[in-house]
């Protein structure tokens, strides 16, 4: 208090908003991005494209007004503006970017070129990154409580949904890919979510009791955690490969399991591999969370005649919940990403588009798989962070 007061006293020229060092990063990125091609124009889906600069990709008036707005907001990021304004300005910039890029197909492609594709290029991604950093920086400095944070996320997702529903981006290549794969997209989305959440659920069913047992029995912990650690180090592709042989043999030997859909390729080995990856964070965080429960509280609970099961449920698990939820967050974000690779062994999910796109050299199809994966992982991370924080501060 006194130190900062003295420091403030020594800087009387604080009336002018000072220079913000962290803000230089998004500002520099934004300035750089305006010099990069905003979109790529291709005569057809897989032809080589040519980059189109920001100024050329948009109608002149939109390019001038939009470019000026983005530059000004980038400049504001360099100044010491309040965190709320920082976040608000970044969101305005992101919205403006989404609006502007929707104008590009009309400005770049000619009406007589039905197969022409306009897709995002380095300039767009860099602008997205720049204002994404600015928004994240602003929201971190705001230190929003869990509730408002979730509301903000909901608002952003709703705005995205509105953007897609409005058809404003329909001219862009990624949405053309979406239109061509509409049914498959939602089926893969369900598979993707099912694999990520299903394996998490299974890992919780097994991992929570195992974590509790590890916290109680040091010798079990000494054996279980290193073993799970080794599993974590197996590369995901190798792990999927490893699953194929035993599951294939199992399905061959027990036809009933085969009839249930358990075979060497497909969702079963993918789910099993994800389950194994998920175990370590769940088990380790449960054990560590229980270690962190104040000993006095456990001792008092015993001394008042609280039984073991009740002590676990009423005292130990609630107090360990923030750490356990952090483990769940790690698992979910990790799984959402790893499911993508599961498409290699026929596991389905958004990875299907990524691998199809790679084999067809169709970058936009890769994006159709990659972008929803990132959005899903980001959403899961924000929600579970908020849950962990809420569990740590509210009375049960």
């Amino acid at each position, binding site marked *: 208090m006194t130190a900062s007061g003295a420091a403030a006293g020594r800087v009387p020229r604080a009336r002018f908003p000072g220079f913000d060092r962290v803000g230089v990063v998004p500002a520099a990125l934004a300035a750089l991005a305006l010099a990069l091609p905003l979109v790529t124009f291709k005569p057809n889906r897989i032809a080589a494209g040519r980059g189109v600069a920001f100024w050329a990709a948009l109608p002149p008036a939109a390019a001038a007004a939009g470019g000026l707005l983005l530059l000004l907001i980038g400049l504001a990021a360099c100044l010491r503006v309040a965190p709320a304004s920082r976040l608000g300005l970044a969101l305005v910039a992101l919205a403006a970017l989404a609006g502007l890029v929707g104008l590009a197909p009309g400005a770049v492609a000619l009406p007589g070129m039905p197969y022409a594709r306009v897709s995002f290029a380095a300039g767009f991604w860099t602008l997205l990154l720049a204002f994404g950093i600015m928004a994240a920086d602003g929201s971190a400095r705001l230190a929003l409580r869990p509730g408002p944070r979730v509301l903000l996320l909901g608002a952003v997702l709703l705005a995205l949904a509105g953007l897609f529903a409005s058809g404003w981006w329909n001219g862009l290549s990624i949405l053309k890919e979406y239109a061509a794969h509409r049914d498959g997209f939602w089926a893969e989305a369900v598979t993707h979510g099912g694999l990520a959440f299903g394996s998490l659920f299974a890992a919780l069913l097994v991992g929570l009791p195992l974590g509790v047992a590890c916290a109680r029995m040091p010798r079990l912990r000494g054996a279980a955690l290193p073993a799970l650690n080794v599993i974590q180090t197996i590369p995901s592709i190798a792990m999927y490969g490893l699953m194929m042989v035993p599951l294939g043999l199992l399905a061959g030997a027990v036809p009933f399991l085969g009839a249930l859909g358990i075979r060497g390729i497909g969702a079963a080995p993918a789910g099993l591999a994800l389950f194994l990856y998920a175990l370590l964070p769940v088990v380790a965080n449960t054990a560590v969370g229980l270690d962190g429960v*104040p000993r*006095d*509280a456990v*001792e*008092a*609970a015993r*001394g*008042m005649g*609280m039984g073991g099961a009740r002590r676990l449920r009423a005292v130990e698990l609630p*107090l360990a919940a923030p750490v356990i939820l952090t483990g769940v967050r790690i698992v979910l974000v990790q799984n959402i990403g790893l499911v993508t690779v599961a498409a290699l062994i026929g596991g389905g999910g958004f990875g299907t588009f990524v691998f199809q796109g790679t084999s067809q050299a169709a970058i936009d199809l890769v994006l159709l798989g990659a972008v929803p994966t990132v959005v899903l992982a980001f959403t899961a991370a924000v929600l579970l962070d908020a849950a962990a924080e809420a569990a740590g501060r509210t009375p049960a």
Partner: protein
Amino acid sequence: MIEIEGVSRRFGDTLAVDDVSLRVEAGTVTALVGASGSGKSTLLRMINRLIEPSAGTVRIDGRDAASVPGEALRRGIGYVIQGYGLFPHWTVSRNVATVPALLGWDRARIARRVDELLRLFDLDPDVYAAKLPHELSGGQQQRVGVARALAAEPKLLLMDEPFGALDPLIRAKAQDDLVALQRRLGITVVLVTHDMEEAIRLGHRIGVMERGRLLQYAPPAELLARPAPGYVERLMGGADRPFQLLSLLTVADARDDGPADVGADVAPVPETLDLRDALGLLLWRGVDSLPVVAADGAPRGRLTLSAVLRRAGRPA
């Protein structure tokens, strides 16, 4: 009444408690004193069977504690520990309600009891019931800990260094509160402490333990006057022994009916004051005697310096 007979507890190769027998009369305070590792906490925890004895029996009101399931036994015995062990994620009122809830009391009865206890411990329910433990001061947390231990109206209260985490000023107040509470409720208290002054201040009887053995078990005055040779004698042999002896007596024990040779304007001492504090007043005011009054203000003769000093020496 607690009867501990030939109780031992072995941890691996060490004998933490070695063949201890003692008897705690109902409605009294017993202090177990010793250095850390002396076995005093282990002995306390064998009373509510948080630790099972390796040998010997503990009887509570005539019933063998081993014949009652441990959890049921503990629900009937109050238990307070040094860090209080309040559940940090529960409100004050839910903390206090722990044992009644375990016993399955109905909501209304629990609410009434919690309200009553918070008032008893000088914690306004409107202000404190909904607070979380970390929002309370150390002294308030300690009171919540004791209130929680007494919630189901146990006849026996076990306390393991209950004042150890409090600063001296608040500790003295908490000790006075415990004495008043024990008298008012008539409960039996067994208290573990490493602080002999605390033991003398609170205990009707004091058990001194060292390396698992109970060396002496006696009322404080006897412990001061006739300490067992060896460890207890060294423990009790501090230069402040006379003052500790005086702290056990009150003005009523030393007063006589003579006239106080001071002016009428000198403030009298109440006959319930302990003699150590009374000596302090005599010395501070530089007088040889002070008038004594009863609780209702009626004159009760005088207290002379020589009468106080006579009681500060080694008893015959």
